[in-house]
């Protein structure tokens, strides 16, 4: 988790906001209204401003997530290497729609923009783990490892 900056830290506590939201999300799986309020109170940053930040950045989740978050890139490099068919496969295999969560809360599917794995496309992040050179076979094997 985001550790406090060394020595003097940030020159303003407001700068801790992104890290505090990551921590809150790590602890609770997503950023609920209560979670945002708690961060606001901790840092003395207006609650509305906290929400503005939490909804600006794509990797903060403002809705409850499944236990495992599949973040699959469909940007150009991954798309031309077949990412779309993987998304279709996830729908077939798990009934997952982009943005959706399986009924058993095992997976949530998030469509990502470029995750910097274009040379090893298609690629995804499951939680914090990178998986590259995906195909219709290995993606299911990989996901089998996430319960």
């Amino acid at each position, binding site marked *: 988790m985001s550790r406090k900056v060394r020595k003097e830290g940030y020159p303003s506590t407001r700068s801790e906001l992104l890290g505090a939201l990551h921590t809150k999300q790590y602890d609770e799986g997503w950023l609920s209204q209560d979670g945002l309020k708690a961060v606001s109170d901790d840092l003395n940053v*207006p609650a509305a401003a906290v929400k503005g930040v939490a909804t600006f950045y794509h990797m903060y989740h403002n809705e409850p997530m499944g236990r495992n978050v599949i973040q699959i890139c469909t940007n150009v490099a991954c798309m031309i290497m077949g990412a779309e068919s993987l998304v279709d496969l996830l729908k077939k295999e798990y009934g997952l729609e982009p943005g959706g969560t399986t009924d058993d809360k095992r997976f949530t599917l998030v469509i990502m923009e470029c995750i910097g794995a274009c040379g090893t496309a298609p690629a995804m992040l499951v939680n914090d783990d990178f998986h590259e050179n995906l195909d219709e076979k290995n993606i299911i094997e990989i996901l089998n490892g996430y319960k």
Partner: protein
Amino acid sequence: MITVTINEKDIELEKPVTILEAARQGGITIPTLCYFEGLEKFGGCRLCLVEVEKLPKLQTACTVMVTDGMVVRTETDTIVKARRAMLEFLLINHPLDCPYCDKAGECDLQDLVALYGPDSGRFAEGKRQHPESFDDPIIVRNMERCVNCKRCVRMCEGVQGDSAITVTGRGSHSFIEPFSGGRYDCEYCGNCLTVCPVGAIMSRLHRHSYRPWFVEKEIESLCGFCGVGCSMVLQMRENTILRTIPRMDLGINKGLLCAKGRFGYDLVESSKRLTAPLVRKNGKLVPVSWDEALGTVAEKLGDIKGMNGGGLIAGIASARCTNEANYVFQRFFRETLLSNNIDSIARSFYIPAQNYLEGIFGQGVTANLISGIGNSDAVVIAGGDPTKINPVLGLQIRAAARKGARVISLSDSEGLKRFGSSQLISSAGSENILYGAVVRMLMEGSDVPGKNKALDEALQKLDAPKDKDVESRTGVSVADIGKAVDELKSAKNVSIVLGPDVLLRDGMRGLFLMASMIYLTDARVYLLSERPNEQGLADVGCLPDTLAGGRPVELSSFREKYEQEMGYAVPEKAGMGLFEMVEAMEKGSIKAAYVMGDNPVFNMPSSHRVRNAFKALEFLVVQDAFMTETAQMADVVLPAAIWSEKDGTFVNLERRIQRLHKAKNSVGGLEDWKIIVKIAGLMGSKMSFGSAKEIWEEICKASHLYGSLSYEDLESDKALWPYKGEPLRSGEAAVEVPEDHGTAPEVVVYADRSLFHSGSFSRYSAALNSIQSEPYAMMHSDLAGRIGVKDGDKVRITSGNSSLELVSMINDEIRDGSLRVPNVFEGVCVMSLIDYEPDDSSAINVQRTSGLKVEKA
């Protein structure tokens, strides 16, 4: 000198400004949308794009500063095309529901499209859908219409300092939202309504009730709620106020208002307005004609005056009434009733505090411009939250803090939570220990300033609390106080803002310590003022011992000169102050009272005692717009007009005299002065006025303070203290060190001065009630824990024979041991829990409540 050429026209400028400002100075129009004067620069809408020679890209006129020799073009083909393109973009997701939208007619986007926009759009896909939000009682949000100019957010964050709204999401899915996404949890200043250029953020209060072009006239007047005296424009159709709005160039508020000012005007139209005079017959108040009511008053007051002179009659004037009304009121009392028993509820704080400070520092010491606070490098707050009592003044403190000023709070000031550098909040009731510690530390290491002998001597005698006592009694660490004091010592431009609670428990001791702080830091002082005309009330002589212009009634030379100049006699002996009146009522030495525009049985401490005193009266007249608790006890009730129905003047807390302009006829009440002139006439007075203006001219004759300011002069800066340069009396008073009244009880009750109410007066505003309609008992979670209640549980507060049951509201921003209850709502009179006793040295009330009990109900 900078010369810039815009559209081949040379414009000379004193200092660098933006291209937009330069163009405006040169009379050249550049269309804008996201630009709003006074808000942080943004440059987002791209409508003000212009060509600047030597720069390859188009530039936004609202952000780029001119340089000498710059050549700008604003109407080239490229620009015209770019503008049209921006408007076409803006309309992609805009619903074009103008026929249905309340903003149509005053919508910036509509106007811009008409002037510069394309004939038709080429966007063929579906527009963004986002349902209109009706979650809030006051503000409707329609995010389909939003153009993302962020003016509202910049206003809310950067000017109001509330930071209650934000942009959520991003890109074309950016929406303006409060934290909840629905109802606002904000100060309801409504300044976002002012700046929204389209129909995205609208007032729900007049939704679909009118169109901008229905406005027949606009009346510039003043807000009637507090002592800041904000200017506002009343938009009228026939006899109805459609809306009140601020104007950017008007008054001291420059476009800002608070919740009360913006939304509270509706109480004028309340169905609870009194519409006919009432006279008590067989124990019941029944409607009668004006002639009968006024005749009854004249006859009864005449009878009582006949018994033993006017000394048997008390008059309570009002800081909600104009100078003109108050002047006539005191003249009626002095000339016709032969009574100097004239006072007001301003006796609770504003008048004694000002008296005391003027005694030490000279007349006019509190006459400081509110805008000066914004330029201070340190601000000290004591005795109340300025952002609630005088919200627009509070904004100046926030502005100062934003510029780096140290803001040191010595009392609960929730509204400055994010702006204060030091919050030194003593435990309830121990304020004067904290003040004493500050004063002592300010003196440490330096000699007394030597500018005021009496104060120097008093300070040397001060028995200031010791460090260990300070910590144990106030709960504030001495190190924190020391840090704040060091900041104060290093500041060069200090403002001290004092609120009513300075006196509440500590009486003169608190005030003495504040005077010492002012002295030691060479500060400007501001007295918070809960009502619009506390200063004017004093200026025109609604005081038992002082005539208009501050002339002591008991000094024969002053009195005689006054009589000579004014042509009427005044009684020699000073009259009774507010609290003495109550005692006299109890003893029977006051038999009749005339209350104009106030509600003393609700608004005075020891309200049960006050109620009983009023009950003992033989005759009570109440002149008011509503059937208040006091009016319900009256023998005659005379319906009065409210400020939007009046002409006249108010004097604000900076002693600025401002004009009130009548916008509409009253639904049933008469202007206060007219009622009194009529009664006086029935009792044989020759007093006769045809208009408020004529009264003003007489006030100027009576008060050397105002010199000969005409109503016309008041529209200019001549209305600022010291007006026409009259010499000021210097301070000469002897200064005593008032005694320390010892330890505080465990729990102290304070009247909570809500941002959304203004005493019992605002309870008649449906709009303000929609924001806050229920009473509460606010307390710290520690106190709640001790008595075993959770947020929302009922608590019972008991003091003597009085008891209130209220819903608890837990708020850790307020000090432990304090209970804050609004003195607003019918049947919930917090003043019934607060007792008073006259302070040693002055007729002020000091809360000495002990044995207050709070428990779970």
